[in-house]
């Protein structure tokens, strides 16, 4: 058994955001294609947490949905435990499906408001036919509720009777009910208050230890990511720009964009310090810049950056970076105080 649980190989996903056919014909406009994800590759080992960070529109949520099979990739493949998801037979896919689950961002939208909590949590069990006896299912749901810090009486309630944090616990209980190995978490705490976020992050860590879970964790919050991840991938405009161990990413960020994100983290310890504001905004993904998509905002950009898209190259400090300046050693690694 290989140590790699999930491999994402050169995945791209495009969305057709054209106007309706008739409008296009009348206005003589071509189709508009949005490249939400453009050639992303990474692997996740068993038991680790890989986080993908980036600003809105960088394609991190799209990756999560491609991995879960909600979107079919336009190119590339997702390989789960050695099986290519696209080539697997229907029954094989059904077998694989119960081994991974997803936790969503909005705890108010991810639970069906008309269903009771017990039925919500039991849905994966019923869908995969894991148990058929009603009493057995009830017992399993009771146990799951206790595991996520709720009480068995909550089975009879409806989602609206719970607070945001409690709903996210229900969401986690549902994800765990088919005994999965792999959880895709799409911004699971970004809709929650900090104190509740701490509860959920602690819970997720406890569960990971207890069940040996593997996480793909999507977030825009670097502080949260630094707390929960083993490895971190940084995304910008549909591409992965840097991936490395958490320690390396936060202590010696190489890619200029990673460095920029770091300097934008509000630092509680140094009250009153000046943030170094980064110029510019994320360009329109419908019309991304040529070459390295970060070049208009990058202080190190030169002509090569404008013309040629950089490839991911392994770096001696660990991990991989897609940056011409790093490759040409124009960027000297800086060591940030931890």
């Amino acid at each position, binding site marked *: 058994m290989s140590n790699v649980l999930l491999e994402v190989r050169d995945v791209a996903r495009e969305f057709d955001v054209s106007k309706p056919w008739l409008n296009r014909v009348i206005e003589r406009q071509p189709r508009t294609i949005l490249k939400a994800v453009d050639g992303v590759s990474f692997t996740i080992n068993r038991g680790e947490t890989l986080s993908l960070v980036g*600003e*809105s529109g960088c394609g991190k949520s799209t990756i999560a949905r491609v991995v879960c099979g909600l979107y079919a990739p336009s190119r590339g493949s997702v390989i789960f435990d050695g099986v290519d998801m696209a080539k697997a037979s229907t029954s094989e896919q059904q077998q694989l499906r119960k081994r991974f689950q997803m936790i969503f961002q909005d705890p108010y939208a991810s639970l069906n408001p008309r269903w009771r909590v017990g039925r919500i949590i039991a849905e994966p069990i019923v869908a995969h036919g894991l148990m058929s006896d009603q009493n057995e299912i009830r017992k399993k749901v009771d146990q799951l509720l206790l595991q996520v810090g709720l009480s068995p009486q909550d089975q009879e309630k409806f989602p609206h009777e719970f*607070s*945001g*944090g*409690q709903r996210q616990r229900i969401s986690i209980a549902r994800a765990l009910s088919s005994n999965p190995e792999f959880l895709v978490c799409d911004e699971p705490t970004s809709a929650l*208050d*900090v*104190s*509740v*976020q*701490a*509860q959920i*992050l*602690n819970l997720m*860590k406890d569960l990971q230890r207890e069940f040996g879970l593997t996480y793909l964790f999507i977030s*825009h*919050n*670097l*502080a*949260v990511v*630094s*707390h929960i991840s083993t490895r971190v991938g940084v995304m910008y405009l549909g591409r992965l720009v840097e991936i490395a161990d958490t320690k390396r990413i*936060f*202590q010696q960020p190489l890619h200029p964009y990673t460095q*920029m*994100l*770091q*300097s*934008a*983290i*509000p*630092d*509680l*310890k140094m*009250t*009153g*310090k*000046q*943030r*170094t*504001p*980064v110029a510019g*905004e*994320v360009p329109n993904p419908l019309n991304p810049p040529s070459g390295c998509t970060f070049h208009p905002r990058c202080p190190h950009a030169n002509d090569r950056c404008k013309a040629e898209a950089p490839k991911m190259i392994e770096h001696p400090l660990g991990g991989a970076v897609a940056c011409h300046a790093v490759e040409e050693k124009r960027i000297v690694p800086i060591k940030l*105080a*931890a």
Partner: protein
Amino acid sequence: MSTPLLEVKNLKVEFPTRRGLLTAVDDISLTIAPGEVLGVVGESGAGKSLTGAAIIGLLEPPGRIASGEILLNGRRIDNLPFEEMRKIRGREIGAIFQDPLTSLNPLYTIGRQITETILTHLDVSPEEARKRAIDLLNEVGIPAAERRIDHYPHQFSGGMRQRVVISLALAAQPKLIIADEPTTALDVSIQAQIITLIKKLCREQGTAVMLVTHDMGVIAETADRVAVMYAGRIAEIGPVAEVIHNPQHPYTVGLMGAIPNVGDTSERLTQIDGSMPRLNAIPTGCAFNPRCTRKSEVQGQRCTTERPSLMPAGKTQAACWLHAQKN
């Protein structure tokens, strides 16, 4: 401290509902000095946004100010008729809201919206107003302001739109700005830009800001003083460095510990068990008492029976009986 620009005395905001009266803001007092940035931080439902809305007279019905006073430069503004209040909004108090898209009218150019605000409140000619609008846009960092002034809100990106909203809030040179989650809808890198901008403008123009947010990081970088709210009450108020590094109220302590920090290698975050009470079930005594881990240190049943008011605690003020014993 000099005479306060804004003084809120025992403000109470209530919502009559069919299940009874909900007190969303309960007996809050605070002051803001001219040019000062006061951060108001709290979790959702703590009443921080309502406090801001009450001050600018924009409480959504059926919400209403039940008691208390709001004084701007010593003049009561909480009981003014609608027309009077409208004149104060914009002229003396500016507002910045969370979602820049909804605070701008999508049908008018931003130039028209800014000049209209200027013309309503200041005695200048239309040409002058337009010139001022361009200056304002330049000041908030919008490139090619002369050209962009005739654009519509949808032609701006999120960060640029928030800059426009800020220039709109500043248009009539108010003395106080209420900023309700001004950076929440923005990406981190844009957040930093907007915070820097707000700070710079306040310093240059001497504008005071009440910064309402749930993000302690934003407060740490921007505010001079901070008020921590819990269940409609102020739990702790004091200089920002003190509240962050040396919090006195057990809730503030828990809140600070719950924030993950880059480079912090601890395995678990400090967590406050339980959740904030719903408004219809606020405990008697200290609202935080069911979740408080230090309740046992206070003699008797004081925490569960008697509500603490703000009392000096270290270099801040905290509403906690722990500090009553020491004095």
